[in-house]
């Protein structure tokens, strides 16, 4: 994914800091004052990251957009209460995790119909066509949709949001050991479901 230079500026990023940096305090303070432009800036910084997580909890793009909208509206309303006790990113992703878990609970009964992974709905296909069409990511996302949020969220935070074990533990309010154990179970589950891709990934 391309990084927008102005986003880097807003994040206050220095070389090597990567995705871990928080937005500039001025942006957060302006959001706390209710300034619309600052909201927009914060949205631009996090929109793809939040949407990436939400999309992995939604059966389609429309629902993912709804969930993302909901997250940002909650963020804009809750940001006045942000006191900087934890890193902003950790605080934000706690909102994201809660919203996605709520959505999952709400849709639990619908998942077998709407959330069936693309690969399953399309029926069996040859490994060659999957690899040739660059659809491994689609297959992985399909398998991920079967994982419970307890296993799915740590995987998304680790591999999409590139968080450390400690950061994930802070978001989920659990120990790093628990994070390690859930990641391990999640990855093993993926490996079991996608055993047919062994040697191709």
């Amino acid at each position: 994914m391309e990084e927008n230079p102005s986003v880097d500026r807003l994040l206050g990023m220095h070389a090597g800091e990567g995705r871990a940096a928080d937005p500039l305090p001025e942006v957060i303070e302006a959001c706390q004052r209710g300034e619309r432009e600052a909201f927009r800036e914060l949205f631009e910084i996090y929109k793809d990251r939040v949407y990436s997580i939400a999309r992995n909890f939604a059966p389609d793009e429309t629902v993912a957009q709804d969930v993302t909208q909901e997250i940002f509206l909650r963020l804009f309303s809750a940001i006045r209460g942000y006191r900087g006790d934890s890193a902003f990113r950790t605080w934000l992703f706690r909102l994201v995790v809660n919203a996605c878990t709520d959505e999952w609970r709400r849709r639990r009964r619908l998942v077998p119909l709407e959330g069936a992974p693309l690969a399953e709905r399309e029926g069996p296909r040859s490994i060659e066509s999957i690899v040739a069409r660059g659809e491994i990511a689609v297959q992985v996302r399909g398998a991920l949709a079967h994982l419970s949020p307890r296993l799915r969220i740590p995987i998304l935070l680790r591999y999409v949001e590139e968080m450390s074990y400690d950061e994930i533990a802070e978001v989920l309010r659990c120990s790093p050991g628990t994070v390690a154990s859930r990641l391990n179970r999640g990855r093993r589950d993926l490996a079991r479901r996608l055993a047919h891709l062994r040697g191709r990934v």
Partner: protein
Amino acid sequence: MIRHPGQDLTAFAEGRLPEADERRVARHVSGCRQCRDDLEEIRFGIRLAEAIPPIRAPGTLWNAIERRLDRNAWAAMSPTRAAYWGRAALYATPFVLLLVSAGVAWHAIARPQLRVREATPDPTGIERAALEEHDRRVRRAADWDLRSDEIARIRRWVEETTGLSATIPDERPAEDRDALRLTGARVIRVGSARAAMIGFDVDTRPVTLVTARLSDLVDPPAEGAVSKNITFRSGAPGGYKVLTWGSDGQAYAMVSDLPAYGQRGCILCHTDPDRRALIRSMRVERD
């Protein structure tokens, strides 16, 4: 007895072990078939997880959020302004109470009634479009662009697809639970105007609502300065009833075979009990 690395194997695969432990695990793995297989399984899982792609958010997302922020402007207001309005509300309270008392007294003397006009003999474009769409639904030949019973989803879809406002509240009175069910939505044309059709059931009977921008219509319903200028048509083909009105720059036509004037369909957008009572009191004013 051989001591396998256990949890350290995952940390080893991820390169998270201190150097000394890493050497120890590497030595063990090179001589242990079981741990080598286990390590390969872990690495395969990691490679799969690394293949999860980041997904770019759609470009329209901010516009949708901004519209909702505008709707919730009070909640998004800065603390200073909120405090100002809080003080203003405090000073205004006695006047508001006075007005409310006067209103209650007036209500007791002259119960308000919603008066609507009879429609002109020729149906307007939006009425014809709503009748056609409704007829298709009744014949089970409706062609939905979005099939859903979720209010938020339909509202957002209509707003994003057509730019038209669809103010259907999410929070519903308990009485709506068995009475109201949304069916779906569709983009249609009224003449050359782009319009949205929203299908829903009230008391298990189909109701069809069509809305378009007033300025896009050749023969728009009159938009009242204060009221919605509602007109009522009965005796339409199929015996359907049509309510038509203009409000906030949009024209609406609602078709159903619900009792009286079909005004019970208005529960879709009106959840306030007083407003609903007023709508129930609807009477056609005949010239």
